[in-house]
């Protein structure tokens, strides 16, 4: 009687299975090796050029200029403008957009993993460089930055374009109560509901600052969004009488809102300023970026934001539109 040996009764199926498992294992190893050797972050890149691909098998660009951006549309737009302007001058650029936290990208630019990032000088100063600073005007802020930035970093020329917080009211409210500056709110603040992003309640230049510098106490605070559709509709509908809006919010122009003047400088200057890693930039890059900063105005930024959020144009379209208009590409 023939004994049935396991080997002889093994059908082709187990071999196929073993082969499948083997292939899978090799694939796993290949992917993990590639993943280990690639360092890139799979961030959104709206440029069609040599982008930091998420494909782990693509070679990492070395020596190329890395332009980073923070995680919101305006900064991504500015970074895209920088990218396009630099590429127009023949510089090889790697975009690395949408980095989720300044906590992360600041150390990265400090050590040169990022080369350029569009910054807001006031926020840069108080968040990453010198939290105790009380500098308020553009000149003061930039002087403080130049004094306190680590040696590997520098700021290039500030643009006149600014995107700062503001206390904004509707045209009707401004007319009714004769409001032009934030101080004009003092008799009415206790009857006003003020709205803004959630962190406005605790920020030093939020409700806290309004009380300390202007002596204002509001009836209540309504947490909304970061100068987005919720805040805008709350202001329009009268759900809030005043709101914290960024000065480049397109609806300020399209809906004829009024941003109250801030003579006591509650909100520090926030000029668009390129922050760069010194060793990573040359004179071409510096002059290109300075030219962009010179051409950039708050009005232009408002128009570009409108194209992005109201007309839903793409970042690349808006960026190249601006650059051709200014003859910078």
């Amino acid at each position, binding site marked *: 009687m023939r004994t049935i040996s396991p080997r002889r009764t093994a059908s082709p199926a187990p071999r196929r299975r073993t082969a499948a498992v083997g292939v899978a294992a090799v694939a796993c190893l290949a992917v993990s090796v590639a993943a280990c050797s690639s360092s890139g972050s799979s961030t959104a890149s*709206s440029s069609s050029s040599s982008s930091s691909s*998420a494909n782990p098998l693509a070679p990492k660009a070395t020596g190329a200029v890395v332009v980073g951006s923070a995680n919101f549309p305006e900064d991504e737009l500015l970074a895209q403008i920088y990218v396009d302007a630099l590429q127009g001058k023949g510089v090889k650029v790697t975009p690395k957009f949408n980095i989720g*936290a300044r906590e992360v990208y600041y150390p990265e630019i400090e050590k040169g993993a990022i080369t350029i990032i569009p910054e807001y000088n006031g926020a840069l100063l108080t968040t990453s460089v010198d939290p105790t600073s009380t500098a308020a005007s553009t000149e003061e802020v930039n002087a403080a930055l130049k004094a306190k930035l680590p040696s590997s970093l520098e700021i290039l020329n500030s643009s006149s374009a600014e995107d700062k917080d503001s206390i904004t009211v509707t045209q009707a409210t401004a007319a009714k109560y004769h409001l032009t500056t934030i101080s004009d709110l003092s008799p009415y603040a206790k009857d006003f509901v003020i709205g803004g992003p959630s962190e406005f309640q605790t920020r030093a230049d939020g409700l806290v600052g309004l009380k300390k510098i202007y002596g204002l106490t509001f009836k209540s605070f309504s947490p909304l969004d970061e100068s987005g559709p919720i805040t805008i509709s709350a202001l329009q509908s009268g759900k809030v009488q005043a709101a914290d809006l960024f000065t480049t919010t397109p609806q300020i122009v399209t809906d004829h809102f009024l941003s109250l003047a801030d003579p006591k400088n509650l909100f520090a200057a926030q000029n668009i300023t390129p922050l760069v890693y010194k060793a990573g930039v040359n004179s071409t890059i510096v002059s290109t970026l300075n030219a962009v900063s010179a051409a950039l105005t708050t009005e232009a930024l408002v128009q570009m934001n409108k194209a992005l*959020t109201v007309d839903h144009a793409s970042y690349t379209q808006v960026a190249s539109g601006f650059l051709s208009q200014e003859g910078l590409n």
Partner: protein
Amino acid sequence: MSWAWANRDQIAHLLVSHLYLALVPVLFGIVVSIPVGIMCVRYRWTWPPILSLTSIFYALPSLALYLVLIDYTGLTDWTVIIPLTLFSLSVLIPSVVDGLRSVPQPVRQAATAMGFGSMRQTVRVELPLAIPIIIAGLRVATVSSISLVSVGQLIGIGGLGYFFTDGEQRDFPTEIYVALVLIVILAFIADGLLVLARRWLTPWERGRSARDRRRVFSAAFHGSRAEGSV
């Protein structure tokens, strides 16, 4: 959908990134869970602590884990891949154990009688028979992984999830729709491919009656335990 066509480059780029972030953890998960699962079956005392550990990882919200990792990995792909791997393990290890344990005793006895040694028995007999249940777990892990990647967008690493935050910031629902639909489609395709893989790997199940298939389906289903995931 003209927006989708106009931006197809960016969409394609993010789709590839999304799949990479979703599937690498599942691959890692499989590679680790099979030996660990085998160990848990052979050395019964290891199973309760490992089960507790995987339960814990299953319960933790993915966003919290991404944030914990930032300190150690910065903001790189690993920040998302490591937590998703842990999540996959929390689904796959129990599946492997369930699958191996589901092999009927008579089959094991027959294999021993035929001369299979212990390790060979596990690999050549029990593991293949466990495939339906393991693949059921794999389906859960893969679908969940593809969905969970988008949560990473809150720290800037979210593949197609980028369109969720950008769409919210720009008041642009079209972007959100497209990304949502794409992610769900990807998940269903992956799921379908795994079902096909199971059929390919288990030829002995073909031609079974509907009732038998339902019984296996139910057992596989039980193994998957239809978990949700965030």
